[in-house]
């Protein structure tokens, strides 16, 4: 039994790390920013923590905190040009940003170790730290959803014209969502650096970006459960069926196509909606008109 648990601790760690990245992607989408920059912020956080630790010998909490600060700062900086763009153009701009960060990590050899990667990072982060961090971020997301912030993010994402007509300063909220996305990715980037000994520039590239996006699209973009379910499913899947592991990216791609077509709101949000509809139906308050959407 203990063997069984031991075997799965690395998978659980991977889940917790990627859950953090999924929350970073989630909060950006939740605030209506079509950002794919989580990979870049994660790279910034990871390399910041790694470099401060390996080159300057600073303690890992300092490096991780610096990763959070730099991830947030990068997001704040990027939010300026991004606020002038909408939808798919934001996606393109942020993918370009991801590539810029990857390139910098390759070409700034003296600092980052270049294509050879950054090695010898002290392993100071274990399962408990990852768990506390993931739980803390989950609490943050949950708390946001319990207050007007969650409702405001919802209306911004669904309809900008309605949002401003209700007095919502959209730019401020989107900057907040995006800065949180940068800070959270920076945090988990730093945690990943101290969890894995070595960093490699392409680790935070396009494949990573697709994986993170898949978690949120599969799980759901509205409820906090969305990223948790999505990450759990996609991390567990290759473990259950080993052959899938070799074709991980292919499987993610197929799942994305299937989910977008058949469950556009993701697993968790669809399930929550179904439950709610059933409760409404059972409460017997259904009027004759409801359900038949159009009257005229």
């Amino acid at each position, binding site marked *: 039994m203990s063997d069984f648990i031991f075997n799965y601790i690395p998978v659980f760690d991977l889940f917790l790390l990627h859950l953090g990245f999924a929350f970073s992607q989630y909060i950006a989408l939740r605030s209506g920013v079509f950002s794919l920059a989580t990979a870049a912020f994660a790279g910034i956080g990871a390399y910041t923590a790694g470099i401060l630790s390996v080159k300057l010998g600073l303690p890992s909490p300092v490096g991780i905190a610096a990763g959070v600060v730099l991830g947030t700062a990068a997001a704040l900086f990027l939010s300026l040009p991004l606020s002038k763009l909408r939808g798919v153009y934001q996606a393109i701009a942020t993918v370009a940003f991801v590539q810029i960060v990857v390139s910098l990590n390759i070409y700034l050899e003296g600092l980052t170790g270049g294509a050879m990667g950054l090695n010898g990072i002290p392993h100071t982060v274990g399962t408990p730290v990852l768990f506390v961090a993931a739980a803390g971020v989950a*609490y*943050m997301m949950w*708390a*946001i959803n*319990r*207050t*007007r*912030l969650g*409702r*405001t993010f*919802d*209306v911004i994402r*669904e*309809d900008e*014209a*309605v*949002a*401003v*007509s*209700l*007095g*919502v*300063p*959209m730019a401020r909220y989107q900057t*907040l969502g995006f800065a*949180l996305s940068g800070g959270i990715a920076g945090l988990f980037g730093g945690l990943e650096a101290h969890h894995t000994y070595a960093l490699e520039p392409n680790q935070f590239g396009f494949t990573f970006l697709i994986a993170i996006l898949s978690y949120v699209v599969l799980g759901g973009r509205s409820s906090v459960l969305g990223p948790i379910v999505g990450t759990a499913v996609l991390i567990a899947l290759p473990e259950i069926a080993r052959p899938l592991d070799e074709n991980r990216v292919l499987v993610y791609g197929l799942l994305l196509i299937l989910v977008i077509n058949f469950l556009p*709101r993701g697993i968790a949000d669809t399930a929550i*909606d179904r439950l*709610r*509809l059933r*409760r*409404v139906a059972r*409460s017997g*308050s*259904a*009027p004759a*008109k*409801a*359900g*038949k*959407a*159009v*009257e*005229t």
Partner: protein
Amino acid sequence: MTELVLENVGKTFGGVVASENVNIRVPAGRITGLIGPNGAGKTTIVNMITGMLALSSGRITFGDTDLTTMMPHRIAEAGLARTFQNIRLLKDASILENVMIGFHMAERSTLLSALFRLPGAAKETRDTRAAAMALLDRFGMTHLRDHPAGSLSYGHQRRVEMMRALAADPQLLLLDEPVAGMNEAESAELARIFRELTDEGRAILLIEHDMRFVTDLCHHVYVLDGGKVISEGRPADVLADPVVVTAYLGESIDAA
């Protein structure tokens, strides 16, 4: 009393004139009508008042506040709320949630209070829910509170939009075709609510096609055609104005 005033407002898109020299006053405690055929420029006027479109000329003031170059969310803060002609609700969210969104400006919670004083922030959400329930009650929709907005009839969806706009406790309410798709009984019920709202001292600007509704309800009517105000005055006088009859109502006057 705060009054919305449009002075010589004009809008051109390239060479196309969408509004020209429009002068409109919307006083508090009154229902003012804005009517005109499709393409007359009604929506352009609404979009300029709410800040969604920049003016090409003229100015718009609300009491002492100059709205002419204000950001849309600032205009909302100044006390203007609106509904949309093509209903814009969060279709998957419940009626109650849709109305709660309208309370944005009344609420104070921030990220920090959500994280570190969640009980207080959560209490604010409960207060907002109670206030939203009071609005639902006023509009007779309490029993529908948990239904997804998208599942309701047009008439009900329009009412949800109105509740959401009222949640902001506006001094001026811009209603873009509020009774479209409603039956007689439903629009009579809304007319009663509109009168209550103006009795409370609010101003209403009603953009409408339904002639009878306008005649019954409005104190003052502006008729727009080709981007210009071609007639204004008491509804009965305006509808009798030959300019209006030919330009707007044409042959369909007996249908009205």
